């Protein structure tokens, strides 16, 4: 099908965009890369009165490194993130994950802010942000607020974003220099939505953070498995116990194609692969 009728504005500055959103509220929808929204429009699942195209706001396209964090502008595209030397050096988890996001032609348009604001439960970058303990900058004409990743994702396609807010930046603490980030997922074909996925970040003096995607209504931390792995050095016996444990703390939703038991099994397989990599 074709997209429904709507008005279209392309603001020249963030200030102008925020004014439009303040004025039109729920009737307006932000378009960034449009890689999810255009499909929703074509399906007639979205029918905004007004599209506010923020795609050309250069101020939201920067990747900057601070002393203890990296800040990624909301409009940074998947392909730019994957090609950034700063990201490769400080947050190697991200390029690994981006290799699983759709296909090259989609990664040329899709943005990190768009993906996070969409809040698909199987989204790779959402799980990475959870594993990396991200904070999000939400800006409206009323001002700016920072929201932690744990409060940002609120359900399937549900986030803390108000209708007049733009996700302008994602702030990620720099992991310790000795930290390891591993991303793995299982999809039917390269680029398909994941049936299950796992973002794993660990460092010598802190326990691991394990974020799962595709197994709940939002990305989730495997907290009990994280606590278990923090307590003692990793060996094959401990790894097996951790794999058993993670199976008990995921409760995937009913799904006619992939039953909960299957997704739970996939999570266990993914964790096993990660832990075996770490042991070797």
């Amino acid at each position: 099908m074709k997209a429904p009728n709507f008005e279209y504005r392309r603001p020249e500055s963030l200030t102008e965009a925020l004014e439009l959103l303040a004025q039109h509220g729920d009737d307006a929808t932000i378009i960034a890369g449009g890689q999810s929204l255009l499909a929703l429009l074509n399906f007639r699942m979205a029918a905004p009165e007004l599209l506010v195209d923020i795609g050309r706001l250069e101020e939201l396209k920067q990747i900057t490194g601070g002393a203890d964090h990296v800040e990624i502008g909301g409009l940074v595209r998947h392909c730019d993130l994957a090609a950034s030397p700063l990201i490769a050096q400080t947050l190697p988890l991200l390029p690994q994950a981006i290799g699983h996001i759709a296909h090259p032609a989609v990664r040329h348009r899709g943005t990190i802010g768009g993906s996070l604001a969409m809040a698909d439960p199987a989204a790779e970058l959402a799980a990475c942000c959870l594993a990396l303990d991200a904070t999000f900058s939400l800006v409206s004409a009323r001002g700016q607020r920072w929201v932690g990743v744990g409060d940002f994702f609120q359900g399937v396609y549900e986030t803390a974003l108000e209708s007049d807010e733009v996700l302008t930046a994602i702030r990620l603490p720099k992991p310790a220099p000795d930290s390891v980030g591993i991303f793995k997922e299982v999809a039917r074909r390269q680029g398909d939505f994941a049936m299950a996925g796992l973002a794993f970040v660990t460092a010598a003096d802190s326990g691991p953070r394990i974020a799962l995607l595709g197994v709940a209504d939002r990305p989730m931390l495997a907290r009990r498995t994280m606590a278990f792995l923090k307590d003692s050095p990793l060996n094959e016996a401990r790894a097996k116990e951790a794999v058993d444990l993670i199976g008990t703390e995921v409760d995937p939703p009913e799904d006619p194609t992939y039953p909960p038991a299957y997704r739970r099994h996939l999570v266990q397989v993914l964790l096993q692969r990660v832990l075996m990599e770490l042991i070797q």
Partner: protein
Amino acid sequence: MTTRTRRLALTVNGEAVSREVPVRQNLVDFLRHDLGFTGSHVGCEQGACGACTVVLDDETVRGCLVLAVQADGCDVRTIEGSGDLLGDLRQSFHELNALQCGFCTPGMMLSAEELLQANPTPSRQEIRDYLSGNFCRCTGYQAIVDAVAAVAAKRQGGAAS
């Protein structure tokens, strides 16, 4: 409901174009219906099949997932404007039977060319991964991978497989 329109100016296949378009029109429909570049095909209209692949500012995109107005000021290239670039790839697709109905072929070739520019010596798995967003319902992909691999080998000066 009134149809909302907007004037856009862009370059398509090397020629400057200026048109008034409905803002809800996607790029591939604009290229096909307003400009007559029907080599870009419309399959799924949800970004899954890759038949509508075109090149926007030197990068492949889904023509169905870009609004025409989003391409305002940009440089667009379709299969019609890619003849010089794709001569050996077209020959290879022909010789190795890498197409039957031809519906996926323009998108397949634009994606394949982008891969070969970025990675002149891709493995068969890398070819499969890069083309995974371009569906073909005829060939079973084997011949397409053969054709792309053969071009890569020829461009490297080796023998075609």
